[in-house]
């Protein structure tokens, strides 16, 4: 039997692997899987706990991907925190608010080098590299690291993380922590790695937190209410250099005259100094109740919103709304889903976009790092057309806009245009609540 085991193993292991094609296939599958995950933004809430969260996160991820293509320069190439972090952390790296560590410890031929750290009241991140003279073939494919963190001598807990060994050796990786309010501006931090791939040793690193202490809090924000009885309450607004966070509670009287797939959303818009309205690249929304608009006429929604601050603004507009998508319900392997109707038009001036002619393309302008499209429109929610090239699997989303009378200038990351480039808009109707719109100024 051992002979059979040996021969079957040899038979399988001897199959040549087309490494490059396989790498491409796996990466392409991961992209497709994430893209299909985009459809989950239309999923019913009995399957996914937070439709609003998925909707915005999906857009955030795609925005991040398209934006990174235009912004990652020398700093981005060198910094692990830039490569791994959200857009707020990337900005901290670019602006020089991260701390160089350069701490090194070696045990049993395994050298850990802590490279950079960043701490604010929302998150802490520490990047590191692993070096060893051992042949990569002799190492496990996944490196398991157990570690503990101490703040001013007090233990904060233990963690275990898995890293792809090849990737870790080539590019390094990071540890991340949250709930960092107890860390002082200059706390003594000790990160202790207690085990790596079964090697029980101590790789101990002590460093000053050098915390970014900007921490702005807004309490007692007046509740918004309209004549129909709709209400919007914001609580616990907290802002650090990387993150804006708040809780929102919303009661809405739902207009049921339009049929379709109805869901509740919250739009967060940063207000720039020169009237530029910034659409944050990464907004995640955790809904504690079902954001699917169901059968009740009055719906209540309760959400935790986190915005990664890629632009350093201190004023935001928060807009609750209900979107009704037209499309088809589909059965999926793990439940029910909804695929919204897409409306695409050629990427050129003069085109009318949307099944309800929501946008007319007045002008398209290509600048060094951006593509600016001027639309004639009267939409109340700034959900602008995206620019897509499905052949190349490229999706580009608006990053900011500026109102100019009945025109709006919308900025996208620089788009490379060919005959397959299109505008894309989902067939949707919006129920808006102008009197519930809330502005917050944190400075």
């Amino acid at each position, binding site marked *: 039997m051992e002979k059979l085991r040996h*021969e079957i193993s040899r038979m399988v292991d001897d199959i040549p692997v087309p490494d490059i094609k396989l790498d491409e296939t*796996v990466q392409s599958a991961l992209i497709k*899987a994430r893209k299909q995950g985009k459809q989950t933004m239309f999923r019913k809430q009995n399957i996914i706990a937070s439709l609003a969260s998925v909707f915005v996160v999906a857009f955030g991820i795609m925005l991040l991907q398209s934006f990174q293509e235009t912004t990652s320069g020398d700093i981005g190439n060198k910094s692990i925190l830039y490569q791994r972090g959200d857009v707020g952390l990337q900005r901290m790296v670019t602006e020089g608010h991260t701390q160089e560590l350069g701490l090194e410890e070696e045990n049993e031929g395994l050298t850990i080098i802590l490279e950079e750290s960043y701490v604010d009241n929302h998150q802490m991140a520490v990047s590191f590299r692993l070096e060893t003279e051992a042949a990569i073939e002799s190492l496990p494919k996944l490196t398991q690291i157990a570690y503990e963190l101490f703040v001013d001598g007090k233990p904060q807990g233990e963690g275990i993380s898995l890293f792809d060994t090849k990737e870790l050796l080539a590019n390094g990786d990071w540890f991340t922590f949250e709930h960092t309010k107890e860390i002082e501006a200059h706390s003594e931090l000790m990160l202790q790695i207690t085990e790596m791939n079964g090697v029980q040793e101590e790789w101990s690193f002590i460093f000053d937190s050098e915390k970014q202490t900007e921490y702005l809090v807004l309490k007692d924000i007046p509740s918004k209410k309209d004549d129909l009885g709709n209400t919007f309450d914001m609580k616990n607004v907290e802002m650090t250099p990387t993150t804006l966070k708040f809780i929102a509670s919303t009661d809405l009287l739902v207009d049921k005259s339009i049929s379709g797939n109805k869901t509740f959303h919250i739009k967060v818009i940063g207000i720039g100094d020169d009237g530029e309205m910034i659409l944050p690249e990464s907004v995640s929304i955790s809904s504690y109740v079902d954001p699917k608009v169901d059968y009740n006429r009055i719906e209540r929604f309760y959400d935790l919103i986190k915005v990664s601050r890629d632009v350093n603004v201190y004023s935001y507009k928060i807009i609750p709304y209900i979107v009704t998508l037209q499309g088809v319900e589909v059965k999926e392997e793990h439940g029910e889903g909804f695929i919204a109707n897409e409306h695409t038009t050629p990427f050129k001036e003069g085109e009318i976009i949307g099944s309800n002619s929501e946008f007319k393309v007045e002008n398209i302008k290509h600048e060094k790092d951006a593509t600016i499209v001027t639309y004639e429109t009267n939409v109340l929610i700034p959900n602008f057309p995206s620019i897509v090239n499905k052949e190349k699997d490229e999706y580009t989303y608006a990053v900011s806009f500026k109102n100019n009378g009945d025109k709006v200038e919308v900025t996208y990351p620089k788009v490379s245009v060919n005959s397959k480039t299109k505008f894309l808009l989902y067939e949707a109707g919006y129920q808006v609540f102008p009197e519930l719109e809330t502005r917050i100024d944190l400075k």
Partner: protein
Amino acid sequence: MSIFKSDSKRIDEQTFETLVVSEQKKLYRIAYTYVKNEQTALDIVQETIIKAYKAFHKLKDISLFSTWITRILINTSLDYIKRSIDVIQLDVEWYRTGNNEENNAIMSMDLASAFENLRPNQKTILLLRFYYGYSIPEIAEIIGKPEGTVKSQLHRTLQVLRKKLTNGGDVYGEAST
């Protein structure tokens, strides 16, 4: 409240990618043993990853990732074979020749050739038992069949394999747990 991060979608995605990359060669090789075609094996790997990504949140114990994604790969391979007329023809053809003593007598195959001509389900059992080294109860769990069925299928597969290889001089033992 712990300073250590709780699970998040982003971390799940990183973990998923890390785990997939660590398994990708094995996944490709197993797919290839079923379909004997590079591009088709790559397609099966791709389909497996997409299915696994969608269901990753359901995987409660990450240490079972390899077993779990192997199960998805095997099911995807078997689904592909069911859809593929060519492969079904090969399978049926072998079954005809496999029951023909005359054909058996003139065959002298090495293991790879014999394996290639096994039924997909028989390949699955051999791979799980002798390549992955899973026990009978583990195989039963992976393919969703009772242990007794797995044991008898393994026994029968080994008999078929032994018959195929007799002329080549290789004789393998009985199924064991």
